[in-house]
């Protein structure tokens, strides 16, 4: 519970214990269960040939417990998925936590967020495992000549790479290198097609086998399911490419500005209910190339410790002083803010800062947590700081109207000084935006690096954003957008609750579609990702250096395109893998009641 203020933590534990009691759940509910021979046949038929199959302790699948949802039997990514039989339930608003409605909003937000501590023996094992890997790596490096290309014709030069860095990537990361950069050859929609590859030399190089594996996609950031090769978005984009071409080959300030981008900016501003917006061709660059325009050397930035690399790069380029506060911890934020404002810039003898900026993300992509926005805004007002909110993952995915965390918390978006986000994820396109007051955006138009120097957005890419944004807003005259938002919220709740019921440790807020499942050990990251692939599920693993050494994790990203059957299919696989690999670390009481979709 290190991330939250201590006193509320105890309240949380107590209330959880009283409401749930202590029950061990059987095999969940509504899980997709197959008869044993049927399943074995499926496994034989569809097992991915390319990946190393991890031998699991239990070869026989569990006997069927209760087949509550008969339709779920039919789902398998290799087969055509059946239409969602639950579409009719969509209109029934699921309202969890009604009983706890009396709590203050802060406490409620806190309750819904989970950062369960790692069991001590697991922590010890994780460190031990990691150091063992390192030692084995060193021995390996001593005994065998590394099979890597060496630099040619540069004798006597200073070595280009740091010794540890290349050691780590060659002898530690290589062991599970096959879990990343997996090529796909399809739309990254609710399912995707992996191009199978094998390695004959323990990860030094890969070869394609020529086969393909169809997988359920729990890895792409396709929150609202707008990634599609057919439908309105794709049609409009193709139309736009045909009428306006593929690019402008010029920056916005030379010959790259056009009516489509102006419309996109106006629409983005309207979407958030702010005065103006500016768009860029790359989400990463939106942070990295605009933060330097907004900050100077006498600015103080207070940044969440889990902020994205693009923000960190932007801050580095800006030359501002950066102070880090503990992840989503408001008490620590206030401490840092107070100290910053009261003691001023130490490099200039305590002279007050020109400006103080708080930098947070809406949903933190590796933690799955949601920023405690109302409290951040209260602090920002108290200390007269400015707030920069990066909604890369939350825009579209959060709030009843998909407007991001401001919508989710019912906060006026004008309370946030700078709204930033990307079009890559929920909108299924590419690029990023900054939105806020007219004064801010005018300043950016005259000072933004990306606006002045980088190529403007390609017409079909901009069109995809326009169409998907209009769909979310309901301006296309349908309720597709509303349904998608609803479906995502429902999928998220269901999936997170079922995972909690299985007894694995997940991080983050229960409404966040980014679901990190903690596996801790470095080797388990590889094992889980590979085993999931053999079960036709594509998920993402994350380990050191992207996370702390101790907190290796598997990340699932939910999508409105997923159906209940698909989630059940995944949950069943996760349940078995969790048993086999010992991932059920959670010591929290499990909810014995079936989770209603």
């Amino acid at each position: 519970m290190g991330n939250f203020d201590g006193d509320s933590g105890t309240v949380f534990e107590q209330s959880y214990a009283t409401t749930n009691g202590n029950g061990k759940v059987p095999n969940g509910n509504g899980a997709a269960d197959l008869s044993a021979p049927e399943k074995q046949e499926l496994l034989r038929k569809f097992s991915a040939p390319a990946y190393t199959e991890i031998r699991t302790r239990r070869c026989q699948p569990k006997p069927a417990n209760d087949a509550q949802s008969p339709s779920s039997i039919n789902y398998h990514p290799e087969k055509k998925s059946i239409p969602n039989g639950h579409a009719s339930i969509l209109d029934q608003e699921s309202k969890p936590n009604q009983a706890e409605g009396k709590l203050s909003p802060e406490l409620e937000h806190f309750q819904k967020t989970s950062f369960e501590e790692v069991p001590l023996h697991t922590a010890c094992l994780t460190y031990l495992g990691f150091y063992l890997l390192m030692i084995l790596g060193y021995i390996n490096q001593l005994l065998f000549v590394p099979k890597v290309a060496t630099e040619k014709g540069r004798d006597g030069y200073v070595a280009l790479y740091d010794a540890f860095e290349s050691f780590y990537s060659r002898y530690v990361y290589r062991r599970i290198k096959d879990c990343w950069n997996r090529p796909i050859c399809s739309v990254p929609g609710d399912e995707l097609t992996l191009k199978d590859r094998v390695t004959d030399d323990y990860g030094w190089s890969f070869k394609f086998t020529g086969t393909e594996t169809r997988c359920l996609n729990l890895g792409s950031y396709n929150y609202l399911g707008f990634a599609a090769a057919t439908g309105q978005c794709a049609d409009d984009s193709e139309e736009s490419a045909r009428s306006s071409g593929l690019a402008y080959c010029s920056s916005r300030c030379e010959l790259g500005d056009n009516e489509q981008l102006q419309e996109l900016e106006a629409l983005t501003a309207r979407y958030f209910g702010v005065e103006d917006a500016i768009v860029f061709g790359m989400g990463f660059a939106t942070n990295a190339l605009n933060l330097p325009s907004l900050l100077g050397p006498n600015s103080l930035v207070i940044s969440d410790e889990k902020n994205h690399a693009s923000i960190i790069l932007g801050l580095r380029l800006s030359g501002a002083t950066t102070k880090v506060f503990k992840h989503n911890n408001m008490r620590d934020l206030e401490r840092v803010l107070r100290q910053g404002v009261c003691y001023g810039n130490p490099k200039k003898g305590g002279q007050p800062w020109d400006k103080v900026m708080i930098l947070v993300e809406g949903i933190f992509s590796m933690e799955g947590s949601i920023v405690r926005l109302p409290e951040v805004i209260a602090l920002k007002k108290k200390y007269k700081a400015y707030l920069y909110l990066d909604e890369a993952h939350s825009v579209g995915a959060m709030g009843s109207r998909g407007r991001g965390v401001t919508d989710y918390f019912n906060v006026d978006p004008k309370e946030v000084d700078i709204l930033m986000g990307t079009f890559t994820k929920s909108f299924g396109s590419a690029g990023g935006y900054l939105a806020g007051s007219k004064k801010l955006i005018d300043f950016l138009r005259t000072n933004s690096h990306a606006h002045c120097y980088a190529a403007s957005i390609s017409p079909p890419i901009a069109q995809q954003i326009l169409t998907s944004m209009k769909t979310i807003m309901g301006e296309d005259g349908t309720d597709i957008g509303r349904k998608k938002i609803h479906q995502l919220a429902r999928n998220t709740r269901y999936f997170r609750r079922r995972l909690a019921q299985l007894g694995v440790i997940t991080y983050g807020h229960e409404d966040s579609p980014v679901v990190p499942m903690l596996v801790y050990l470095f080797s388990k990251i590889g094992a889980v990702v590979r085993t999931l692939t053999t079960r036709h599920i594509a998920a993402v693993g994350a380990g050191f250096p992207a996370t702390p050494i101790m907190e290796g994790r598997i990340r699932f990203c939910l999508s409105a395109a997923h159906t209940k059957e698909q989630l059940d299919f995944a949950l069943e696989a996760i349940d078995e893998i969790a048993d086999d690999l010992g991932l059920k670390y959670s010591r929290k009481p499990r909810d014995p009641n079936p989770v209603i979709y």
Partner: protein
Amino acid sequence: MVAIQLFNEIGSIFRNTPTFALVLETLLLITVIWLLLHRRGGGRRRQLTKEEEDRIIADYEPEPLVADTDPNHPLLHTRVVQSRVGKRIQVDGHDCLNLGSHNYLGFLEDQEILEEACKSLRKYGVGSCGPRGFYGTMDVHLDLEDRIAKFMGLEEAIVYSYGFSTVASAIPAYAKRGDLIFVDEAVNFAIQKGLDASRSTIVFFKHNDVEDLERLLIEQEKRDQKNPKKAAKTRRFLVAEGIYMNTGEICPLPDLVALRQKYKLRLFIDESISFGTLGQGGHGVTEHFNVDRDEVDLISAGMEGSMATVGGFCVGSHFIAEHQRLSGLGYIFSASLPPMLTQAAISALDRFEREPQIFEQLQAKSKTLHQKFLRFSKLTLRGDEVSPVKHLYLAQPAENFDKELKLLTELADKCIARGVAVVQAAYLQNRERQPVRPSIRIAVNRLLESSEIDNAFEVIESVSSSVL
């Protein structure tokens, strides 16, 4: 008793110690006390009470988030393109001959490339919905990387999703704090940002001046001799552009390569303009000078010029390029390039290989335009003859850059009204390393006819005579 003895003992110490030692020790003691007190005072001053803190917070008045922007700022008033970009372009309601878009080979109006991109859209959708590591790698990305590497005859290529971020990520992937980078002073803004991100020591040499570079290298060599330990750990880089975006001139590559060998530098060339325009086969500045590509450590290029799509790539030996897959920030942390734009780049490469004559055609057009545009009475031309990017400056400098920019803007506006689209180059003057002289940046298109070049010359000449 013991106390008296001790007292006597101390007294004898004082009597027996020479005076100078006593004075020294006292000074030492004072210094230590002063240092201790000073550090406490300077580091955190004294602790404020809660009331004092509250008062400071109540009195704190931050600067506004951003300064007010002049509503007449030139960058607020951009020109609006109203048609598909090609040799002709509709700008602000005027149908113009296009001398402003960096569409050197005319691929923007190529129907075949468009069809292939649309086919790709129908297979993969628009966005890739993830970074390369997390299911954002599609087979088209791998194809493109293979094709670029093969085209350049090098081992490995790596594709970025944004031209600006390509070189800006590549430089800090290798150069770190404490390293040395020698850079031409005229490099474009993306390189400048890459240098900032690397936190290395930057040494600028005069634009295309090899003697100045050698002078700086010799100076550095002397410094190294004084501190050989540090020198043995300092990586050295040399960064230049193939054709400079800001001047249109070609870098003296053979000389740079000679210096690279002599002083053990690693040479990075940004070929955003020269790739696909220079050399017989469009292989860039290395082919232009007939330099072995192994002599250059890393070549980076945007695909937003001759390839007429979006994004960029770096290409080099496996040893060099592979490193960016774990260290190129813009590669790891950004969503991958949309598949349809990746396909457009592959299709462009197809054309490069199938019709290598297009490069000569482009170079011929660049030369024709160069010869013609040298004759302006009130404008001077800068740039290499074969470069597709050239700059027009005022022949008579105005009193300051603002004034020059104003005149050039007026000139461009009037040219557009008369059917020739030229634009003044856009710079953030206050954020460039040093102010860049305003100019009109001309981009040559392979499809231009001689008559059109003549016509453009007439229009610009007559407008410039009336404006200037």
